[in-house]
């Protein structure tokens, strides 16, 4: 393993942290749990030479209900804290499910939800040691010229694979960013650029400090499903989150779907959402909806069995929607 020499900063206030990030610009990165960043350091692909630790900044770890009946989650809370929080399990089971399935228990005890939301994209040619990467010219994401996965377009297609953002996007969560110009909030979706090289759309000196989930509408439910090679440790081959609002008649009034593990950002599936609006809760294994989902995924990279992944996406969307709808039914009757 390579080790890059780094400067470590341990600010004790958020303002200091922002100032440090602003000072060092692209050469700096915030360090939270380190479960994504330390491997990058060992692989020799971390661009930052200044690590700004968030560990000694008090606060930003609480999970509480908001005045509006939603949830406010400090970005520095660990994934384990989020997964086991009674407030999250009750208020947004989809997020609890996503947090509980990220990485392994050892990683969830260190990794934060903010870090998971800000996870770097991954690629076969990038997440490798320096010695491994020496077999060919550096790829774009490692500051080279080429993309080996998508050589035709020569555009980086590194995959975004974090679990929690799909759930957050499906339920319409917003992210709070603290930066040199103060604080701002954006929808979680808007945190992502879609660019495999630099997947985050936030400013270099901005720190994700919190996530705010709106109060769930009446007759609504949300679920997150993960498909991975093993039931722990692995990144999702595919993660699907669905949030569903039912009409008084029991049909689907509206649905929001977010998937992870498909592109360089977590993404919505607008065509499938549109097709769901106004119709009955799909039956298990609805093939028509499955096919629509499979088509709507677009080009798939970094996937060994593309038809299989499309097929799975179809199944998972149907199941996620069904589960979310069942949750909504449960809530409206209780």
């Amino acid at each position, binding site marked *: *393993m*390579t*080790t890059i020499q780094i400067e470590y900063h341990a600010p004790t206030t958020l303002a200091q942290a922002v100032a440090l990030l602003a000072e060092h610009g692209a050469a700096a990165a915030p360090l939270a749990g380190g479960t994504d960043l330390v491997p990058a350091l060992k692989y020799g692909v971390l661009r930052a030479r200044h690590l700004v630790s968030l560990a000694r900044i008090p606060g930003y770890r609480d999970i509480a209900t908001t005045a509006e009946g939603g949830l406010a989650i400090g970005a520095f809370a660990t994934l384990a804290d989020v997964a086991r929080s009674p407030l999250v399990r009750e208020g947004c089971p989809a997020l609890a499910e996503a947090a509980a399935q990220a990485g392994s228990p050892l990683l969830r005890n260190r990794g934060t939800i903010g870090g998971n939301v800000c996870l770097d994209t991954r690629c*076969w040619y990038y997440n*490798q*040691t320096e*010695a*491994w990467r*020496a*077999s060919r010219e550096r790829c774009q994401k490692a500051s080279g010229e080429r993309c080996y996965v998508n050589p035709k377009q020569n555009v980086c297609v590194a995959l975004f694979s974090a679990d929690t953002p799909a759930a957050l996007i499906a339920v319409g969560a917003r992210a709070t960013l603290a930066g040199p110009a103060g604080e701002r909030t954006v929808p979680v979706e808007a945190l992502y650029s879609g660019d495999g090289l630099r997947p985050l759309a936030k400013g270099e000196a901005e720190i994700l400090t919190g996530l705010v989930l709106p109060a769930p509408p009446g007759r609504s439910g949300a679920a997150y499903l993960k*498909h991975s*090679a*093993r*039931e*722990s*440790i*692995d*990144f999702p081959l595919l993660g699907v989150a669905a949030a569903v609002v039912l009409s008084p008649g029991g049909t689907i009034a509206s649905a929001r779907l977010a998937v992870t593990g498909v592109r360089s950002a977590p993404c919505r599936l607008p065509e499938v959402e549109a097709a769901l609006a106004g119709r009955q809760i799909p*039956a*298990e*294994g*609805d*093939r*028509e909806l*499955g096919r629509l989902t499979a088509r709507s995924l677009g080009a798939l990279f970094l996937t*060994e*069995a593309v*038809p*299989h992944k499309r*097929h*799975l996406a179809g*199944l998972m969307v149907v199941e996620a929607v069904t589960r979310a709808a069942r949750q909504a039914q449960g809530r409206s009757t209780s």
Partner: protein
Amino acid sequence: MSDYAVVGKPLPRVDARDKVTGAASYSADVRLPGMLRGKVLRSPWPHARILHVDTSRAERLKGVHAVVTGRDTAGLRVAFVDTPRYPADEPPFALDRVRYIGDEIAAVAAVDGETAEEALRLIRVDHEDLPAVFTASGALNPDAPLVHEFDYPGKTIWEDWGARGRPESEPVPRTDNIAARTYVEFGDLDAGFGGAHHVREDRFDVAPVAHAPLEPHAAVAFWDQGGKLNMHVSSMGIFYKRFVLSKALGLPISHVRIHKSYVGGAFGGKIDVFPYEIAAALLSRKSGRPVLVELSREESLTTTRMDFQASVRVKTGVDRNGIIAAQDIQVVVDTGAYRGTGPVVVFLCYSYNIPVYRVPALRYEGLAVYTNNPVKGPKRGHGAPFIRFAVDSHMDMLAEDLGIDMVELMRRNARDQGEVMPTSGDVLRSCGLKDSIEAAARDGGWEAKRRRSVWTGSERFKRGVGLSACSMFSGSPYYPFASAAVLKLADDGGATLFAGTVEMGQGSETTLSQIAAEELGVPLSDIRIVSGDTELTPIEFGSFLSGGAFVTGKAVRLAAEDARRQLLEMAARLLEVDARDLEARDKRVSVKGAAHRSLSYGEIIAASVKQANGDPIIGKGYHKSVPDAGLHPSLSTAKGRWTEAYGFASQLAEVEVDTWTGRVRVLRVVTYHDCGFPLNPQIVEGQIEGCVSMALGQTLQERVDLREGQVFNPDFLTYRMPITHDTPAMVSGMIHSHEPHGPFGAKEVGEGAVSGVMAAVANAVYDAVGARITSLPITPAKILAALAAAGRDGPRERE
């Protein structure tokens, strides 16, 4: 049946306490004053000519103490197989060529790992790419680039043991990429196939998998003032390592000492002597300081051998009752850039397969082919997993063709006790194969659970069962050919056992201590074991070819028997009775039928020292792996004795297939292992459970993802071995066949149960959903593709 006091009991392991407290020391845990860290520079090119290696900048870097390149090992070639036919082919460090990604070019020792890595970056290697070949079939093409242009049969390191090299021989130009070939033919094939009621032929493919022991490879080297090399290594047999290191470094054997380290799992991958070990020795010699070379996980996975990529073609002719009349098998393995154990595996695919079913006429051909892929080596089962996957999948298909139940088909063809193996003459003195088949079928619920090709139900999850059987040696003739043991009695009748075994997880320290305690008549707690050190212990066969318990266990039993005999003889003199009228137990010798006339071991030993001119009573025992065998069997013709005893196992898998996603969940694996006699049932169970888990990984999810010679999943995030969630219910039973040559009737247990799982699962998947998967791993994508082809995939259309 037995009234043993110590063997046959599930006693806690003697090494467990050290291991649960973190006190157990592995090679990478060794800390010596002034110890440097060594790192290896490896080829990033799959095939290249090396024009020049410039280490001057690295040597000048502050903190660097030594650098080693091909110039330091010029003329040296090392390999597990080193015979006139298959001469050693692997230079420890490249001189003029590198042949795979990971091939060693240089090594550096520095004050710490970071400095050593920095130094590697400063080494300049001028190279010229050469055309490379990455598949066995491509390498067999007449136009394929040659991975090796010459063989060097001039000498073999086995000359001391009577294997003659061809000293006059110049390097022999090679014309193809065939690294090894085993060919066996017997019986009347034409008549067998011609007269057969039914003939079918199938092909199976197996992806390479990794050993992936939790401990990455590591070696520590330091030299005495007297010029003796001392090492801690990741090994499976310290005497083999000592021998090869002494030859490679040109040292008398007495000038190489392997010190004890625990080994964090090996599974076949730690038997070879590797360039990084030679590097540690050379770097330490050059620097005058101790050197630790600890490989990264990536290096361990890609450059210290992996299992073979293999394809197997099986053709069988049977009569109307399913009795095999003739069989034609061809195995082709990609052995990688160096021979590794290619010559051994193509021999073993024949010899691990032949003990299972009676075959009157056979043609077998095994080819090991050079490619520019990583080098392959023995992994638990060493060929048995893929040959048994192929043959028992094929048998299941034959069973369906013939309308004969698979259990019945297996039973009709299974070998019995007393049968003699063709070409080797090995006799099955104990054989619980049929019993194991029946037991596995019974406890696995075969009759009740079989779907019998009924796949019409509309349910999403479908279950099925499948069965397979396998066999394994109990040691084989290979260096050092034998084990010896010494049992030194203390004043109080306790004893220290000196046995060269390496504790790598298999439980040998415990099992051997149990054997000594039983035979000596003392409780286990009275035995201390000294192991894993070539200086302190007599030779030991090693824990490979499944010879540990069988060969070394027998030597230990004989050593304890020797000590016990001496105790009895001294007691006979003291008690003035015939030694045959005495019995020894619980650290006392007493006159049979007159328990009051007895002496404690302590009293006897004291008397022996006083009366027998200072004799403190030391027992000695030894045993050769196959007493009437030569140096080793012919790998190319399979002639010559292979082993003294065969272990057998039958395994039943029950699976549940999700017909929508293609995912297979293994619900239960039932194993019945004929291990002769379980010396420690808890350890035997642990071996079986570990075999099953490892085998399920290979069956369903593990695969070294090789693309153009590069491993794309060289870490534990992407090389996916089973985790807790993947643990099925396991029933692990033992058949007591009482091997007459084994210690207390014991024989092999650590490898066999890895080899029946693949076909058992493949057959169970077929039983569940009617999809025949003929390549490993059995992935969801393959299952869905097969179901789609059969029109049985996915959810049904909405009504």
